[in-house]
């Protein structure tokens, strides 16, 4: 017997053997592979069929047009027979406005939140889809169509309608020529949105935004002379002085000279999804930068910074959001001077933001710790200073790892906005639904309003979840 062997011809690569594919194979492998598996499949199928059998007629017999719950029931009985069950969605007709804007937001001004909501996507698009002209175009077209329709339905005044369309058209033009300029609109959007939602004189947000202009101008001209940090400090001081002393009189004077204003709507008139979205979007926008700073602070070498961050994070995480909201609503009132008219919604916004920021900070801390030390060392060895190393090397990677967790906490934050019912704000799930169920016409209705609110929340959260998936794929560069 010989053990010597030499291959003379190398084998070419071949296609895998043709095996049976398709549904049958899949079923056999995944559903019916073992006896236990067969039993589970049968049981599960039976369960699904049972549930569907019982719920389906309820949906199938839905009634959309009726004046009251009794009328709904009568229609179901007439069409599907005595004793049949049927959903009654007719309450939506009188109540949908309350669900979306809150029952106290002035009906004549509902076009304002509608416009602000459309422009929100225009402002977000350059961040969410940076540099992707095709996606930008799609979003802008959808927003333009949305605004045309909804502003018309909400009977916006002609001037507002024309200005809004002009604005969108202008931004579309910019997106085609210089998409990076769109970020300016994103920066101005908070002021515009504030003005649209709360109303009042247009000069208040403009003069307030000018404070940032003051900050930047001083920083810009002083930093070559007195250095980076002192210039930044001087800018901040000047801006604070501006807001404290120049802001109100200047805005007042301008308003007297050129009066431009919208009907003022105080925060306690906000409700429904408008409220949920205002809290959710503000919380998300501000919690991310604050969370990043907290996470970096917790890793800092400076013991005092580190200790402050740890105390902040652990305190906020250790207390339920409901408790914080209570503090915001009732306890803060004792400590603030009585004449300080500190808006309830503003207090809620601040606490919700802090709450989300503390969670984000912990999520980010995990990803920062997961980055190999070599990344920090390579950045140091190349001479990058702390902030540049964080911004260019560390944070992009840490944020990328934590996208799923970050979006999860944003989704949680958005759903938690319903907790503000505890401080007597009319959020959609309990606040508005409660009003519907107290309405004489709809007394006794139970499932339908909750399902309606649930579906809308689902759409928002599912949207965020899909976006996170998209972002993960887009940023995937490790090719593992």
């Amino acid at each position, binding site marked *: 017997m010989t053990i010597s062997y030499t291959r003379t011809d190398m084998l070419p690569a071949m296609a895998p053997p043709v095996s049976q594919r398709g549904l049958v194979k899949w079923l056999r492998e995944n559903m019916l592979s073992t006896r236990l598996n067969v039993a589970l499949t049968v049981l599960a199928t039976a369960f699904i069929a049972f549930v569907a059998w019982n719920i389906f007629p309820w949906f199938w017999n839905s009634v959309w047009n009726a004046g009251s719950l009794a009328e709904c029931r009568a229609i179901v009985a007439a069409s599907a027979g005595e004793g049949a069950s049927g959903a009654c969605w007719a309450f939506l007709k009188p109540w949908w406005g309350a669900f979306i804007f809150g029952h106290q937001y002035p009906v004549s001004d509902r076009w304002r939140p509608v416009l602000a909501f459309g422009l929100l996507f225009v402002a977000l698009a350059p961040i969410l889809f940076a540099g992707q002209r095709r996606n930008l175009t799609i979003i802008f077209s959808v927003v333009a169509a949305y605004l045309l329709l909804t502003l018309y339905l909400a009977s916006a005044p002609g001037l507002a309608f024309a200005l809004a369309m002009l604005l969108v058209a202008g931004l579309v033009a910019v997106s085609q020529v210089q998409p990076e300029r769109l970020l300016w609109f994103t920066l101005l959007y908070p002021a515009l949105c504030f003005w649209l939602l709360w109303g009042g004189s247009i000069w208040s947000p403009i003069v307030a935004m000018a404070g940032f202009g003051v900050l930047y101008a001083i920083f810009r001209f002083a930093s070559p002379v007195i250095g980076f940090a002192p210039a930044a400090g001087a800018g901040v001081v000047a801006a604070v002085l501006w807001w404290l002393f120049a802001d109100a009189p200047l805005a007042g004077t301008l308003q007297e000279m050129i009066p431009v204003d919208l009907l003022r709507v105080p925060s306690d008139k906000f409700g429904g999804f408008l409220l949920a979205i205002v809290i959710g979007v503000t919380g998300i926008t501000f919690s991310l930068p604050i969370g990043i700073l907290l996470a970096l602070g917790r890793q800092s070498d400076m013991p005092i910074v580190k200790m402050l961050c740890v105390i902040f994070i652990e305190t906020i995480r250790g207390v339920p959001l409901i408790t914080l909201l209570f503090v915001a609503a009732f306890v803060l009132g004792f400590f603030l001077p009585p004449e300080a008219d500190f808006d309830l919604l503003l207090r809620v916004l601040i606490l919700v933001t802090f709450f989300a920021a503390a969670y984000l900070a912990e999520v980010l801390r995990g990803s920062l710790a997961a980055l190999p030390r*070599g990344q920090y*060392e*390579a950045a140091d*060895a*190349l*001479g990058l200073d702390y902030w540049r190393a964080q911004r260019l090397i560390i944070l992009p*990677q840490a944020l990328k790892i934590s996208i799923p967790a970050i979006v999860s906490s944003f989704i949680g934050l958005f759903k938690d906005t319903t907790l503000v019912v505890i401080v007597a704000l009319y959020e959609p799930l309990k606040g508005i639904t409660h009003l519907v169920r107290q309405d004489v016409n709809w007394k006794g209705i139970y499932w339908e309003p909750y399902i309606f609110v649930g579906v809308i929340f689902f759409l928002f959260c599912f949207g965020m979840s899909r976006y996170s998936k998209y972002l993960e794929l887009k940023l995937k*560069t*490790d090719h*593992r």
Partner: protein
Amino acid sequence: MAEAAKMQVSDEVAIQISGMNKWYGQFHVLRDINMTVMKGERIVICGPSGSGKSTLIRCVNRLEEHQQGQIIVDGTELTNDLKNIDKVRSEVGMVFQHFNLFPHLTILENLTLAPIWVRKVPKKEAEETAMYFLKKVKIPEQALKYPGQLSGGQQQRVAIARSLCMRPRIMLFDEPTSALDPEMIKEVLDTMIALAEEGMTMICVTHEMGFAQAVANRVIFMDQGQIVEQNEPKEFFNNPQSERTKLFLSQILGH
């Protein structure tokens, strides 16, 4: 070839380390290090694992802090002064065992990042420089890929090019080939030899004795945090003086 290159050593001092000690907590990791590196000199440091080789060269660009003694790099003393540290770091390039490329950036972005943000070079110019050095390490065609798509040897050559883009005066290498498969070691060593021939001041921690014999002016042997022996390569390998050196050489050359 290497003989000619060895002639280029100038009499200007590039790195001066005197009476340097370092501790990790209670552990005395570097003990009374004295060492002078001339401009254009190429030094190979070897020694058993844990002898403090990495720690020593990481002190040179202050990735590690020393507690006693003096380190002067290119005329700048390393102290707690951040300005000095940044100055030294931007003039000293470093290549790591595990490459440490930035995985979220393309090769080109890896190379242009520091020149743009630290040296304030215009983007276009930085990209031209980057392409020049990519050609030099023989992988210009990979410029738009991500590090994860390259082989280990290619990644290490990119890492070398990344350091070179900062136009450093001194290069530090910390076991640049020990994480590589044998077939990739040569391509990285070739790159380093080419760099040596151009007269770059280099300190190189490596156990590639062929490389040491070909390009080094001096080989330093370290053990237990101390410089045990140093000599020019021929003498060092053929006629080691200390018992520790003999033992070490017999171990790494033995198989």
